[in-house]
């Protein structure tokens, strides 16, 4: 078993530069979720670990071994592809046994042991009754398990799972998540799991690395990312709903630092004011959780005029998306209040527990 380390990775495709000095560490036995929007470079990063793509420069280490230039087969990894990539001409058993029969492992497993392992992995993933089926006769969930089994069967040092449950329907997705997690708890293989679903990352990861445009925005434990987002991007990506991001301006009033949002002035707690004073410029972004905003009947001091963009029921509450200026805010209210799209409503904002970010860099002010 071994950790996975990226050091100062550069990678371009033609003229478009993807990674410019990316570094990331996934310690031994950890389950790291790589989270980010489509096209941010998640799959490419996995392929670099696997050796299917070589970085232009920078080091990749598995354990304490530098693996640059090593062919994929010699890296002792298990990789489950986004689209399964099962061998259509082989049965389930044939697919599972395929890595064991590879020339690189010639002589390591006897026939009896191969059969024994196939049975064991199949039982583990509950596909033992399917062993003799052709893989194209399987459901998506079953194919997913075969792909997972094929990645596991030769006891790889690290496990790479590229969006392993994204294509499954909701129920199967939950089931598979639980099973994969359970499996990791049992065998403890260092795992990188790619996803663009923040719920999935929060539910499964020991660690989450949030990626954006080829950069790591933040690496941390799920709760850390939730409570202490390092950048506005992370804040706007994590949570259900995520934080609302509102552009604002710092100003001085009677010697106190205040925040101006859409013409209203809001005062800051002492702790926040201390953070605000570290701001490199006056332009900031305020991150707000839904509980920090509330609808009010009529314009009152500090309230902001907004327009209802959408509304929908969530149990007894309703969830509103309100817009003003270029920002939008998520807000929860009792469903007794009747609003329709386009209504003008007033919003009172409490900065208690808000996060402040520098508008230019997106970095959290506390973390500078």
């Amino acid at each position, binding site marked *: 078993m071994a950790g996975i380390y990226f050091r100062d990775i550069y990678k371009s495709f033609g003229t478009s530069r993807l990674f410019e000095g990316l570094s990331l560490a996934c310690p031994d036995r950890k389950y790291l979720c790589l989270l980010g929007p489509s096209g941010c470079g998640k799959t490419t990063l996995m392929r670099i670990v696997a*050796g*299917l*793509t*070589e970085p232009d420069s920078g080091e990749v280490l598995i354990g304490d071994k530098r693996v640059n*230039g090593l*062919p*994929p087969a010699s890296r002792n990894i298990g990789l489950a592809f986004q689209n399964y990539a099962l061998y259509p001409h082989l049965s389930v058993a044939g697919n599972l046994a395929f890595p064991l029969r590879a020339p690189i492992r010639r002589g390591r497993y006897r026939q009896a042991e191969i059969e024994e392992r196939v049975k064991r992995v199949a039982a583990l993933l509950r596909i033992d009754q399917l062993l003799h089926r052709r893989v194209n006769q399987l459901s998506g969930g079953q194919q997913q398990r075969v792909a997972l089994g094929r990645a596991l069967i030769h006891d790889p040092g690290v496990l790479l799972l590229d969006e392993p449950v994204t294509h499954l329907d909701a129920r199967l997705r939950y089931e598979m998540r639980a099973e994969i997690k359970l499996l990791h708890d049992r065998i403890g293989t260092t795992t990188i799991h790619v996803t663009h679903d923040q719920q999935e990352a929060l539910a499964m990861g020991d660690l989450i690395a949030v990626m954006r445009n080829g950069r790591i925005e933040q690496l941390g434990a799920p709760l850390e990312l939730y409570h202490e987002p390092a950048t506005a991007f992370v804040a706007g990506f994590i949570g259900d709903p995520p934080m609302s991001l509102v552009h604002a301006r710092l100003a001085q009033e009677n010697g106190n630092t205040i925040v101006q949002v859409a013409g209203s002035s809001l005062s800051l707690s002492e702790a926040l004011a201390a953070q605000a004073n570290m701001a490199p410029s006056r332009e900031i972004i305020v991150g707000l959780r839904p509980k920090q905003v509330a609808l009010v009947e009529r314009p009152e001091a500090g309230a902001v005029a907004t327009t209802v963009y959408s509304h929908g029921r969530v149990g007894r509450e309703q969830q509103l998306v309100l817009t003003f200026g270029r920002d939008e805010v998520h807000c929860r209210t009792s469903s007794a209040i009747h609003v329709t799209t386009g209504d003008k409503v007033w919003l009172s904002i409490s900065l208690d527990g808000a996060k402040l970010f520098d508008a230019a860099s997106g970095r959290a002010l506390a973390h500078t």
Partner: protein
Amino acid sequence: MAASKRADRRTALLLIAPAMLVLVAINIYPFIYALYISLHTFTLGRPTPPRYIGWSNYRDLLDDDRFINSLWVSFKFVAIAAAVEFLVGFALAFLFSAKLRGMATLRKLAILPIMVMPLASGLIWFYIFNENFGAMNWFAFLLGAPHRIPFLTDGKLAILSLVLADAWQWTPFVMLVMFAALQAIPEYVYEAAKMDGLTPWQTFWRVTLPLLRSAIWVVLVLRVVDAFRMIELIYLMTRGGPGGATETLSWYIYSTGFLDQDLGSAAAEAVVMIIAVSIIAQIFVRRLNYGAAT
């Protein structure tokens, strides 16, 4: 996937080299060799060694009436055969697209001639066109022809008889390919055209035809190139006669080289032919957008 570039390149080379070796031996080297021979007098079966004579084999071609005639005959044959096969085959593709019961079976039967050994097809047609007892003359008789028709021994008729035999084999090919291309056009395209108020005629010109462009192109070039090289029918049915009326370039090269045993001149004619066909092939290769796949 690019793990180790050098090993990859070696594997690619190992994979491609054997095929390239065969092609170099049987395609590139013979072409160069043909060039070499064409600059020599070179007579089959005579012990005198070949003698270098420069370009004179080529110069002789310009004064060679049979050569000029063979170019003209080739042109006539290719133009008529390709045109007939294409137009009839294309029309039939629409006919066979009709969604009627039994059409699939009819289609299967219709394409049977494509794979018939060309020499055997020459044999059959030689028999059918026979002046004394051939079925073609019997049909002519039934249709009221006053006397036996010399299908293969009259200059004008002979080339048309060859066209008919060629068309018998290759019209189904055009039909088959165009049929497949038609099937590949999705139904919604026609529905959209209908919504836009196009008449069937307009739909054909503005929708169907443009979508069939690459298929038409492939079929036409294949027919032109293959009609140009056709030799089996002539070998069996007319042997270039009567009086050179069906002596195509292919046949002329064959008979210069292996009937008159004048390999030097045959090689010069062959070089001219290869270059002519290469130009057609080049145009074709450039036009096809295979590049999208690479």
